[in-house]
Every structure is written in C-alpha cells, then in structure tokens.
C-alpha cells in the first residue's frame, strides 16, 4: 500500500481529471492510483498528466523503444510502481518482456536492437548513471542517428520520467492491478 492513500473517485470533482484518468487507464502508464494520489492538487496534476502522455505516448520516437527506456529508468530509480506498469500501446505493437529485459540489461550485444536504438538506450542510461559521459562526443554520435527534434523529444522524456520515478519511489506504491 502506498504511503499516501489514493482519493476515492467521488472525491475528485474536476471532470477533466476523470477524462485524463480514462486516457491513462486506456494507455496503462500511469494507472489510476497515481492520478488518485496526485489529484489532491488538480491544476498541477492536469498539466503533469498531459505532459507525461504527450512525452511518452505521443511523438516521433518509436513507442516501444520509449517504453523500454521508461522501464530502464524506473529500475534505476528502484521505483516498484513504475517498474511494474506496462504501456498497452507498446504491448499491442509487439513489445515483449524478453525485449524489455534485454533492453534494460544486455542491449549492447543484442541483435534485437539497431545501433540507433542502442544509442538511445545508452543516452538514458548515462544521463543518470554518469551524466559527465553525455558530452559533445556523445551528442555527435547521437546526431548520426537522431535529428535535433528527436534528441529534444528523447531528452525531455528521459528527464521528466526520471523525476517522476524518483518521487514516486518515496511513496512506496504498487500498481493497482497488482495491489
């Protein structure tokens, strides 16, 4: 059980939050628990959920790759809640647990991932393990595979979800489906 209890659904009066909650449930990340905890601050939450959905669900980077990166980051942060969630969009597109495991652990030597995907996985890994390695040489290598817009999309996605995971970890929460 989370250190902070979720609100009951009828305590959430803002209809826009209910609409966003339905979007989240359809997508899978986050689930209703996150929404019901953070609905204590409705205006902040609405902006945050829109940013999370736009950053993760939408955009031009392959969604399966983003979902692997998100899980990789959640594991780095040791956040059990976001580590256990899965994007239904990514699963429907063919993402498997085997791909997630290899993507989080042994992607460098795997044939499952292209060099472009490996650079993206390395980018997320280094950003929060040793950001000094994400230097001009690293960005030059990224530019061989990604446009400026794609690098901004990826970097913002990584930055946002790192922050979300680190805070969520302190709540010691678990997904509703597994609770």
């Amino acid at each position, binding site marked *: 059980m989370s250190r902070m209890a979720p609100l009951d659904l009828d305590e959430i009066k803002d209809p826009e939050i209910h609409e966003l909650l339905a979007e989240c449930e359809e997508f899978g990340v986050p689930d209703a628990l996150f929404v019901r905890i953070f609905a204590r601050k409705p205006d902040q939450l609405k902006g945050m959920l829109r940013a999370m959905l736009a950053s993760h669900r939408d955009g031009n980077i392959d969604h399966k790759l983003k979902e692997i990166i998100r899980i990789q980051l959640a594991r780095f942060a040791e956040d059990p809640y976001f580590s256990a969630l899965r994007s239904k969009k990514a699963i429907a597109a063919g993402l498997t647990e085997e791909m997630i495991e290899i993507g989080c652990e042994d992607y460098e030597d795997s044939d499952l991932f292209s060099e472009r995907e490996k650079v993206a996985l390395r980018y997320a890994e280094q950003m929060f393990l040793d950001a000094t390695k994400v230097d001009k040489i690293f960005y030059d290598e990224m530019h061989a595979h990604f446009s400026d817009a794609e690098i901004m999309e990826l970097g*913002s996605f990584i930055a946002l979800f790192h922050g979300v995971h680190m805070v969520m970890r302190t709540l010691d929460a678990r997904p509703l489906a597994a609770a």
Partner: protein
Amino acid sequence: MRYVETISTDPDSFDDEAWDDLRKHLSEDEIVELGMFLFMNLGFHTFFGTLKFYPMFAPDGRLVSQAESERLYGATPESLQGAAE
C-alpha cells in the same frame, strides 16, 4: 529541503521514519504539490546540464553571448551575487 536532498543524493535512506518526519511538517496536499514540482526539476537540470547552454541574459539584464554567459554563470553557480561585475 531535507526531502529534496535525500531524493537527489541518497534515496535509499528515505524510509518510514523519513516519511513520518515529512508528514509532521507538511500536509498530504503539500507533499503532492512538492512532489509534482520535483517531477519537473529532478531530471531536467541534469538533461540541460548535458546540453551546455546558459541563460540568454546577464544578471543585470543585458543580452549576452553564450560564451559570456558561460563565463558569468559558470558550470556550478552557487550565487549570482557579483556575477555581473
């Protein structure tokens, strides 16, 4: 401030005792507000740091080049006092 520092530097030490300490001083609404503020701040500063860009304006309001801004603000600005001098 202790909460922010712990999340950033030693998250393993954030336990039930630390949570109880936080709850003594902040309401659930305030913790949620602080948490969502941190969503945006914990990761973005690291990301921006890798991009090596600096503020467009000096502390006295002048539009400055990135080279001058880097000189003014430095890699780890602890205080802006006297930065424009």
